[in-house]
């Protein structure tokens, strides 16, 4: 982001989810395509509230010890506070931890109602595998996951409720076409990052076509107009003009019972899109007060 700002070039930020990047660290050259942490938390949180897993329940969190994790933990704490959930313990996990057994023992000692992962990337997969290995009796949920992490978790290991920005089983015609073409070319379905790269390039192409230009200022103006884009979901997306965050649906998911998956990539039962169809897309995103950004 800083490089884009120094060079005054448009930058489509497609993978980092920290709220801070759209908040106090925002800049006008960056447009954020992936959902921010607050949306991840709210997507899962709403599902948990529906399942009565939040009010008066004790949560124990494991948080990745860098800006992303700290940011996600803050979003999680806001969610717990707003919904009468009780955070009874949090462990900061260094990014090179590959063995979680000491932390799992601490979780057992704390006896929470729900264990919650605020980890990223490979560590989520490793935690899921080792959590299943120890077979602790508390349900595990998470506020961050990528499809590849879920696929790598191993047969029967993943459980609980998790968020995703997109999944290849999404029942939207444009999405299904994209998935079919991808499978034809690569022999396996696209994971969420493949989707995000595809739609980001389409958005840039649309902007360049419409403005008949590759000049950064013209492209920024086009995107800031809150132009709508087909992002292969039921609802179109647009960039919010004050923080450059793509407004879009997100999905909570749970795991299909063993035996129901059609293949090794079909392990996820995608939940209904959030926000609901009758709510504005901004409903789950951080507000100006929660995440101030001045461009």
């Amino acid at each position, binding site marked *: 982001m800083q490089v884009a700002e120094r060079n005054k070039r448009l930058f489509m930020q497609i993978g980092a989810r920290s709220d801070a990047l759209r908040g106090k660290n925002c800049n006008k050259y960056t447009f954020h395509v992936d959902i921010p942490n607050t949306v991840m938390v709210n997507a899962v949180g709403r599902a948990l509230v529906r399942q009565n897993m939040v009010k008066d329940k004790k949560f124990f969190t494991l948080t990745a010890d860098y800006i992303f994790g700290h940011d996600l933990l803050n979003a999680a704490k806001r969610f717990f506070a707003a919904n009468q959930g009780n955070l009874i313990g949090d462990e900061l996990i260094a990014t090179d931890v590959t063995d979680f*057994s*000491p932390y799992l023992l601490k979780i057992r000692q704390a006896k929470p109602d729900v264990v919650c992962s605020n980890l990223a990337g490979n560590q989520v997969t490793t935690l899921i595998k080792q959590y299943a290995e120890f077979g602790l009796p508390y349900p595990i949920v998470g506020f961050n996951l990528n499809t590849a992490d879920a696929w790598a978790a191993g047969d029967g290991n993943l459980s609980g409720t998790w968020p995703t920005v997109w999944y290849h089983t999404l029942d939207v015609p444009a999405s299904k076409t994209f998935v079919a073409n991808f499978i034809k070319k690569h022999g396996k379905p696209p994971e969420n990052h493949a989707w995000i790269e595809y739609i980001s390039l389409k958005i840039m192409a649309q902007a360049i076509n419409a403005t008949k230009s590759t000049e950064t200022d013209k492209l920024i103006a086009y995107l800031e107009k809150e132009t709508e884009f087909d992002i292969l979901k039921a609802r179109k997306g647009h960039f919010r003009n004050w923080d450059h965050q793509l407004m879009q649906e997100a999905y909570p998911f749970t795991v299909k019972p063993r035996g129901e998956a059609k293949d090794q990539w079909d392990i996820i039962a995608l939940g209904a899109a959030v926000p609901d169809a009758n709510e504005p897309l901004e409903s789950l995103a951080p507000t100006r007060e929660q995440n101030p950004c001045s461009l």
Partner: protein
Amino acid sequence: MQFGFLLEQVVNGLVLGGYYLLIALGLSLIFSVGGIVNLAHGAFYALGAYASVEITRYLGFGPAVVLSPVAVALLGILFERFILRRFYTADPILSLLVTFALAMVTEQAIRMIWGAAPLSAAIPPVFRGSVFVGDFLFSRYRLLILAVVIVVLLGVWLLLHKTSFGRVVRAGIQRPDMVAALGIRLQPYMTAIVMLGVGMAALGGAFFAPITIVHPAMGSEIITVAFVVVVIGGLGGFWGVVLAALLVGVVRGITINFVPAAGEASIYILMFLVLLVRPRGLLGERIEKFE
């Protein structure tokens, strides 16, 4: 209650240390006998994991954890014959460079063959879940790993201390010049030791695949811990590595209990302290220029 929690971390640390031992012992043996610091040791761990996941698909978990270390040990013969052998009497920096390069080449080769996305591997159903021994929680699978480590450790100890092969190897560690003077060629022993060392690393990879992420760079995750264990334990000894591995596991567990943020750093601080106080390592051979 607090003491019970601490004790549980200590016991868990011992189990984990047993696992680190499998990787570190091979590394220590290769250095002790051949004088080579094998920076590619993690690559053999990764190959063991990948081979095991692949073989499990066709033959199941049991055959996979037996066959994958054997396959990697055979690769070890090629490694020793065509790469290591040239560097026994060369400047140590050269063997560091070549094994480091081999580690990188192996990682990329794994990426080319299996792709960059992690492989899916799971514990066989019969070993899932935990057991209670008294008030201590153990994962059933880690108890299996511990049992395997104990058997391997016993086997290696018997090999080194109760066979003529082991006698020659131990003599070769202490006084290779005298062994040569007695008319014994150490070369075939070195090949066997390399096979044993990388085979143990691969066994570690095969057993850890279901509980860690199987990805091309996994070798680099384990090599640093293995080195720390070998340095703390001291080169040239068997029990030094055992003691160091258990100590590393326990220190990490205790630190996470009290100061979790320092958990990963604790093993390096331990190594630093050991090197300050006793440069040869806890039970290592005396290195004259440092003492």
